[in-house]
């Protein structure tokens, strides 16, 4: 099932199917390794539920929910 990354619950895993952001945001997202085919797991959310912390490629990344909206994931 493909959803937006925002929908993933803590401890849920997913695999990126598409990144639809463009411009600076798109570049930054891709630079950090969020490209299609990447497996990830949500490891936490900030106290106000935003931003979200994601484990991937051996490191932890955080991004805002509004940024996660541009990333579609196949929930695993």
């Amino acid at each position, binding site marked *: 099932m493909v959803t937006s990354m925002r929908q993933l619950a803590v401890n849920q895993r997913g695999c990126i199917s598409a990144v639809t952001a463009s411009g600076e945001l*798109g570049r930054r997202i891709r630079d950090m390794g969020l490209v299609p085919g990447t497996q990830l*797991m949500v490891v936490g959310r900030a*106290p106000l539920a935003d931003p979200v*912390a994601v*484990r991937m490629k051996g490191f*932890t*990344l*955080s*991004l*805002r929910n509004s940024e996660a909206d541009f990333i579609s994931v196949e929930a695993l």
Partner: protein
Amino acid sequence: MAQTIRVAVSGQPNCGKSTMFNAITGGSARVGNYPGITVDRLEGIYRENGHISQLVDLPGTYSLTSYSMEELVARNVIVDEHPDVVINMMDATALERSLYLAVQLMEIGAPLVLGLNMMDEVRRSGVTIDVDKLSQLLGVPVVPCVARLGQGRKELMQAVAETADRTQGKWTPFRLSYGPDLDPILERMSRAIEDAQFLTGRYDPRWLAVKYLENDEQVLAEGAKAGATHDALLALCAEAEAVTRKNSATTPDAIIADWRYGFINGLIKQGVVRGSDALRRNNSDAIDKIVTHKLLGPLIMLAVLYGMFLVTFTLGAYPQGWIEKGFEWLGEMGTTYIPEGYVQSLLVSGIIGGVGSVIGFTPLICIMFAMLVFLEDLGYMARVAYMLDRVLRIFGLHGMSVMPLIMSGGIPGGCAVPGVMCARTLRSPRERLATILTAPFMVCGAKTTAYLMLVAAFFPDNPTRAMFFVVLAAWAFVLLVSKLLRSTMIRGESTPFVMEIPPYRLPTLRGVLLHTWERVWQYVKKAGTVILAVSILMWAVMTFPELPEDTVAQYDTQKEQAAEQVKAAHPDAGEEELATLTEDAQKEIEDAQNEAALKYSTAGRVSEALTPLTNLAGFPWQANIALIGAFAAKEVFVSTMATAYSMGKVDPEEPESLSERLAADPAWSLPAVLSVFAFMLLYTPCMVTVVVIARESNWKWATFSVVGSLCFAFVVSVLIYQVGTALLT
């Protein structure tokens, strides 16, 4: 054979690049600035076996696009300074992401040496990295390192020397395939570039073509100026976009990133890494369960921030006190040994007083930076940003803005100088600027003395509540003004937050000390020179012109008369007793003379000339002149008020008697009091802060800070006074 190898050290943030740079260069590193921007440029030297290597430390970047100042600087140093070898430090625990930068460096073509850092952590987590295999697949030397322990330093520099010998300064750009959609177009673009000799003096044709497809702002701007080939290339870019949109519903830059990561993935899958699980949680994730917990997280954060604040300003108070005592002593020596006159007055009141106030801050900066560097290197500041981002984003700020705001006086007693300086941790330029420009509104230590005096005068019944209200107002103004700035002057999308949360790593003592020292020295050097000049200016403005001779003569006569009266009244007093009594009797006259002199000076005249304007805001003339003086340092407010209320010298720590005088002056109506309160909070930062703002941004923004704050403060004060007066009558 002695030859100099020019080496650039690159790497992603948190990869241990600076640690390795320091390990290689020892104490030889020197900080400079890249011209026109505030990114530090560190340079150092390494000698071994007759080779001399000149190293320059590039800013940490994840990639080599042109979106941030750091990336642009890193790229331009490589392109323009054409180093003989580029060292790329990599975080081996995040090998894939680290290789993303390495591949881009290979595409530029600079001879590369890879330093695979954090190998101890990799081993501990049970992962094996086949270094030889990686080196063979990339065709680049790879050296395993543990920078924290200095391991791999020699081997790395050995590889640098060998690479320099082998390549002899010749660059061979690596040609990465970007797939069937883009490769043919890239080919056509490269050929067009070569045929027209389009920017080939600076860039490799194929690299330039890739940058065009990536829509790189800097390269496009340069190309637009360089000639007609630019349009031909743009047409080809449009063609490429049409193809990628049709075949994979995305843009060329996305395809490029995908293929780069695809290439890296392919490398790793050939047996470079064994036993890894990219999604496995590490110890840091376990710690973060508590440190970023919904309830505990904010509590711990408050405790840490408050603790830092407390340590900075309680511990720092001791050395600050010593330094101030030292300068006081110096001032006394000046008063004693230099004959009375302009030279003495200039040296003692102007130079020693002014420079002393600047040097007095250095202990605070030392302590604050040491702790900040520690928390930053530990990885805690990233967690703070993560937790607070949601709140600060509403006002156009960034999670990282909280530290500068608190340091500046978000808890009263801070200081905007270290506050503005620690805004460096912000990687987003717009948010950083908004933070720097608004942080001086906070209630710094100097403003606190002024407020204590004013509060004691006008709100004696409930001073605590009044102070609390002042602090709340400061926070409200900071947030509202940054919102205002971010929707006008510094408008623009918020910079993407996308941020690595690095694993907790204990920083090295050496690294912390080195970084702290660099900052402090720069502060002393830069701030010292400008402030010396402004101190002299402020002194002159408050001293000249002097009272005309006949006026001075009148005061002298009065003093003599007073002395004679005292003598007459106490015919049998001893010499010593008589001297004390005379001094007491003359004090009032001297105070009156000081008041007259201040009124007569340029500062006094300016404040007099400003009265029609400041009457709108209801300032009494004494406040006018004190506010002008307080530009030098906000503490001056209290002492100038004292002179203006002809009280002679008042100890800023114990201003009760001045408060009584103020309370008795009918010019201070409630609206006038509130209006001065607001003005004090919002107007021009003190000169030390202005200099630091200029250093951290540029003089344009520093000027804006001076003029903008002044106008804003005036408007707010006038509003408060006029509305207040209308309501009360």
